């Protein structure tokens, strides 16, 4: 019986112990609820702190060239709670121009790590001096991108229809409007002694941009046909006994057709003009015209060095050894005018006008056919010590070219597949944040804009084939690229509107035009980096590039060097994606 009596006590104790454990479990559960509630607030604060760290890091990188020192071990606290600490931005493996910023936010027991991939955008290669890039706006104004990555307007261009040329030196351009009239020549004609009417093409002048820290002004180079210039020669008419010999005048005029520069030397297409005077016999009653005066004209190539101030002849099809005798015309070489010039060292190359497949090599006695391109050439460029063609179709015969399919493909080195972005969205039904895919993965494709634009401009002709949309300084090559972005639909991902699968398939393609730099190994699109592209869609056939409030025409681009007027070079950092 004692055992039976003890049972009720044991049962009561057992029930009490059960209730005790039940209470403990409830308290523990409640503690979890409290902790969860508090943790979510801490997590939100830690996330805000981590985000603040990222924003501060990017801001310091954009505003302070000494950011590596400033961001070393950087940390701070928000006013409303939450502390952040930064790890030094580190290169992303395989992408030397991408950096990863890592920021850790801490609040209470919550820790949140945010990462951001940013693209380091440089105006020039590390060992190259920063160039000044020049382009024309849609209104014909000159726009300049200084090494500090700031665009500025420099007023009207000397000739909006002409090229801007430069390579390691100042900027050159033709000047709008004809230069001085041809020299006046008085000679014996069938109508008597009078001024000889010369039929010559209007000559042009070349100017260079004198850029100082605060000033910019165009200075015209004295034309080669200017009387007194080193290429102007003249002998007056003379009478020896009964023989009359008319005047001989030799001069050169710039055509404004093609221009190329290397350092302080500018090379321009020109025409060599020569007037050989009339020959007559002097009689008691007057002159008896034996042979009228004659005007000779041929294609030439002139170079002017700002350092010496003189013009020199690089290519000349006509040699005048005696100003009173007929000149020697070199036969056997193409005599047609040229449209596009390229300089490899001091060796000039040209594309024959009307036959852009023919690459001519300049010699002192004229042009010789260097090679025949199977593709339609748009421009000639000297890059890395070799002549390159800018073609839009076909393949060239062994000549390196800048095109889509060869080694200089911009798409090769861009970040082609941009990862999708996940984030938290406020769900009103559950009154909580839900992690969702905010942006689907994106793929980028790029091609050289020059091909398309040059095709259009080439048909316009007018001495400007529009092929001058590649600028080179050192091993940096600059040009315009057209970027096409398209979104990738992942099969197992539910996309939020408007990123529906139909949208991704049909309309999620945008095209953007931007400037790009090739450093010999990889391309980099700038300014703005990749993240800006989705925000700057342009119509598929637009030929203007929006840069801030500027609209640039991709028709002409030049990289000039102004060491004295240089502002400190800067790098830019553009976010690619937040992870």
């Amino acid at each position, binding site marked *: *019986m004692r055992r*039976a*009596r003890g049972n*009720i*006590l044991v*049962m*009561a*104790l057992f*029930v*009490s112990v059960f*209730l*005790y454990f*039940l*209470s403990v479990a*409830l*308290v523990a*559960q*409640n503690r979890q*609820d*409290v902790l969860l*509630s508090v943790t*979510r*607030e801490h997590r*939100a*604060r830690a*996330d*805000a*702190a981590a*985000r*603040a760290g990222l*924003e*501060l890091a*990017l*801001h*310091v990188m*954009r*505003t*302070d060239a000494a950011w590596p020192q400033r961001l070393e071990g950087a940390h701070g606290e*928000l*006013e*409303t709670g939450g502390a952040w600490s930064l790890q030094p931005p580190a290169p992303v493996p395989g992408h030397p121009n991408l950096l990863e910023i890592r920021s850790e936010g801490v609040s209470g027991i919550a820790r949140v790590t945010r990462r951001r991939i940013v693209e380091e955008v440089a105006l020039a290669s590390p060992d190259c001096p920063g160039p000044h890039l020049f382009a024309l706006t849609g209104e014909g104004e000159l726009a300049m991108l200084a090494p500090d990555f700031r665009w500025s307007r420099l007023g009207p261009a000397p000739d909006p229809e002409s090229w801007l040329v430069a390579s390691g030196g100042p900027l050159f351009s033709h000047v709008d409007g004809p230069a001085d009239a041809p020299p006046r020549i008085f000679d014996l004609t069938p109508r008597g002694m009078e001024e000889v009417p010369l039929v010559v093409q209007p000559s042009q002048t070349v100017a260079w941009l004198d850029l100082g820290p605060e000033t910019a002004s165009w200075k015209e180079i004295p034309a080669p046909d200017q009387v007194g210039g080193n290429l102007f020669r003249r002998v007056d008419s003379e009478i020896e006994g009964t023989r009359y010999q008319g005047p001989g005048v030799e001069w050169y005029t710039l055509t404004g057709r093609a221009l190329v520069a290397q350092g302080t030397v500018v090379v321009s297409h020109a025409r060599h003009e020569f007037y050989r005077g009339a020959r007559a016999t002097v009689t008691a009653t007057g002159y008896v015209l034996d042979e009228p005066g004659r005007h000779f004209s041929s294609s030439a190539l002139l170079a002017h060095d700002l350092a010496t101030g003189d013009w020199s002849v690089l290519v000349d099809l006509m040699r005048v050894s005696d100003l009173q005798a007929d000149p020697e015309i070199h036969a056997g070489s193409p005599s047609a005018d040229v449209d596009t010039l390229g300089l490899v060292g001091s060796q000039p190359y040209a594309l024959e006008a009307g036959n852009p497949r023919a690459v001519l090599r300049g010699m002192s006695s004229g042009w010789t056919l260097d090679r025949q391109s199977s593709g339609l050439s748009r421009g000639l460029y000297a890059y890395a010590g070799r002549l390159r063609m800018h073609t839009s179709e076909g393949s060239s015969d062994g000549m390196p070219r800048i095109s889509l399919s060869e080694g200089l493909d911009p798409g090769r080195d861009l970040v082609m597949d941009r990862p999708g972005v996940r984030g*938290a969205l*406020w769900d009103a039904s559950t*009154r*909580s*944040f839900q992690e969702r895919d905010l942006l689907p993965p994106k793929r980028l494709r790029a091609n050289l804009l020059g091909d398309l634009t040059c095709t259009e401009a080439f048909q316009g002709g007018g001495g400007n084939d529009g092929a001058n949309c590649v600028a080179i300084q050192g091993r940096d090559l600059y040009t315009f690229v057209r970027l096409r972005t398209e979104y990738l639909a992942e099969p197992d991902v539910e996309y939020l509107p408007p990123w529906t699968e139909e949208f991704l398939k049909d309309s999620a393609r945008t095209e953007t035009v931007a400037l790009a730099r090739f450093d010999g190994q990889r391309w980099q699109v700038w*300014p*703005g980096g990749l993240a*800006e592209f989705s925000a700057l869609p342009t119509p598929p056939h637009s030929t203007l590039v929006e*840069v*801030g*409030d500027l609209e640039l025409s991709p028709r002409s681009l030049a990289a000039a060097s102004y060491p004295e007027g240089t502002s400190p070079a800067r790098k*830019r950092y*553009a976010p690619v994606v937040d992870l």
Partner: protein
Amino acid sequence: MRRASGFSLAEVLLATLFLCIALFGYLALHQRLIYSNWKIEQRQAPREEARSALVQRLAQARRGEAAGLEPVQGVAHGLWRVRAFTTWTETVKGRSEPVEKSVHMDTFIGVRRPGW
């Protein structure tokens, strides 16, 4: 023998005492937990709303629509502090008047120039 088969009054009272202590303790605790959970739920929504408000303020700042941003001190111009907060009233035991509570949050945002 009959006596031996039952429980004494003292045993029953003792057992009842044990059970009452345990049961009333549990009920008191349970009531406390219910109040605590209600309080947690009451505070949870404003906290989430504060976070949501901060996200919205960030989006407004990116679009250049946010007003009243304060520059962050100690860095070059262009980095701004974004604030958001929510308030709510809460009844507290022992007080007849509801008490006003608030959650404040802040973070930074750099406003970029066009193209950068």
